């Protein structure tokens, strides 16, 4: 594959090295085929965003229509609602769910007792292993207006039951905080690992200087976490347009739709349920392109500060 781009001197060597290691290439072949067929072939299918796809003519044979579907999306009355919901959920997520594992790791790092440290972590990991379906099932069971535990507690204190799942204003908070509950512990592993690797002599020096525990946390532990946190933040920003379909789709109902419709659920609805393949592909492509631009841009900014993905 790279043979043609090599210099002439190397070209005579290459076939022999391939012949010698032919089984090595055979090992990687299925993986290459996998990526070409299952990842790159669908990218070739993106062209239907610029065509009027008809199943009879196939992806290649359908007629080109330019940016028609994109224009239709931009003029769509739902356009701004979708963008706003997508951004709001993402930013909410970054503001609330992103710092939690960092704070948790900092706290766990301060615990000296081995037993307590182990138990806290073991318990905090647990919800991560529940499936999205089960998590949403739990959330709905707990928040049910008639039988849910939360509303029973509210009633016990003399309050009126709250219709959590059908209240558009509450959707985003339920989404984000259930995510914190499920993933905070597990996401903290990485940060805990970084903290465990900090040179002990830094702490000893700070102690001799009379730094309190809080100061040591602030001036040693936090700065050590920052590079890792920045890399994780880049990932988050890179998927800012991509809030998870899986959970939102399960939490969505007709009454909370005004705040739960995001681009990914819209693409599913109009594309797979409504069979408007080309239009849906255009919406999806618009989303991917913005995402791609974001991750490249954020990475460039991060590189100036010395930490980046590539």
């Amino acid at each position, binding site marked *: 594959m790279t043979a043609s781009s090599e210099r002439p001197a190397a070209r005579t060597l290459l076939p022999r090295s391939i012949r010698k290691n032919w089984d090595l290439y055979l090992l990687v072949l299925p993986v290459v085929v996998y990526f070409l067929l299952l990842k790159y072939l669908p*990218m070739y299918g993106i062209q*239907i965003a610029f065509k009027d796809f008809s199943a009879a003519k196939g992806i290649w044979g359908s007629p080109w229509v330019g940016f028609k579907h994109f224009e239709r999306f931009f003029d769509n009355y739902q356009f701004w609602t979708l963008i706003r919901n997508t951004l709001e959920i993402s930013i909410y997520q970054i503001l609330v769910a992103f710092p939690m594992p960092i704070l948790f790791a900092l706290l766990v790092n301060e*615990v000296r007792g081995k037993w307590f440290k182990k138990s806290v972590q073991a318990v905090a990991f647990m919800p991560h292993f529940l499936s999205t379906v089960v998590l949403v099932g739990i959330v709905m069971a707990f928040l049910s207006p008639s039988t849910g535990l939360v509303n029973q507690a509210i009633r016990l204190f003399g309050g009126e039951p709250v219709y959590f799942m059908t209240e558009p204003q509450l959707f985003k908070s339920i989404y984000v905080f259930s995510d914190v509950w499920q993933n905070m512990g597990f996401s903290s592993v990485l940060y805990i690992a970084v903290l465990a690797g900090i040179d002990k002599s830094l702490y000893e020096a700070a102690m001799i200087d009379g730094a309190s525990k809080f100061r040591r946390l602030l001036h040693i532990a936090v700065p050590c976490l920052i590079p890792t946190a920045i890399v994780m933040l880049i990932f988050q920003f890179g998927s800012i347009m991509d809030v998870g379909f899986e959970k939102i789709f399960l939490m969505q109902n007709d009454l909370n739709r005004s705040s739960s419709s995001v681009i990914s659920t819209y693409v599913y609805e109009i594309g797979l349920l409504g069979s408007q393949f080309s239009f849906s592909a255009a919406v999806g492509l618009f989303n991917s392109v913005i995402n791609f631009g974001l991750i490249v841009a954020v990475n460039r900014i991060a590189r100036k500060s010395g930490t980046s993905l590539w």
Partner: protein
Amino acid sequence: MEFNPKTKSRGDRLFDVVVYTVLAIVMLATLYPLLYIVSASFSDPLAIVKGRLWLWPQDVTLESYRKVFRNPDIWMGYRNSLIYLVVGTAVNIAMTTMGAYALSRRDLKGRHALSLIFTFTLIFNGGLVPTYLTYKNMLGLYDNLWVMVIPSAVSVWNLIVMRTYFQTSIPYELQEAAFIDGCSNVGTLVRIVLPLSMPIVAVMTMYYGVAHWNSYFPALIYLHDHSRLPLQMIIRNLLIQEDMSNMAGGDGASLMDQILQAEGMKYAVIVVSSLPMLIMYPFVQKHFVKGVMVGAVKG
């Protein structure tokens, strides 16, 4: 000034109190809902609805479980999920190991280009609809076992983690020695590298296994045939669409009774479907941590 690390200042003691209190609260907040679900699954639904259940089971009964296990869909979902898990994970491990091993070798020409081609799919993909059309119309991945296995055959992330493990944890001299003894690449992988990589293979097996067990999205999109649905899709119908009618009802029970029984069954369904993961959890937990660490070392 005298310095004694054994004595704590008042500020430090306060700091400790705050740390332990916050962590204790986090622990309770995580554990309580889980305990409540287990208790609720063993309780009489009437006690739940009346709000008598706060922590321990009330009016203990196994009725909810009996109802859940009498449901043929649950069994079918369990069986399907197990098949997808076993076949899927086997394919995952085979593909990931082969790819990671080849990529770990310095004498594989173009390995950087390949890594780049693979990693690019992390930040850009075909999107839902083109992917769906390609899989269904061009690759025939629709309504069969393979659509649950092939599309997730390799995770780029795991591939990179495993490649890094091969590169950093297995001395290259060992492989060279094998080559000198006339071992082929495949032979070296199977006889030298894999036996030394059992920790990472275990981690990968668990990562992939949990993902298969918990996945519902491919089934939602690519499976139409009811008899092929995995457990997650079955419990989605029960838990989220609250389609308990055919489960609870039947034997002349009143509507009120049916609603009550459905209430108790919700919790039993949650426990039953999460049970394999919860049983595995204590064994898996430390490996998972290791897996994350290995991945993080890569940088």
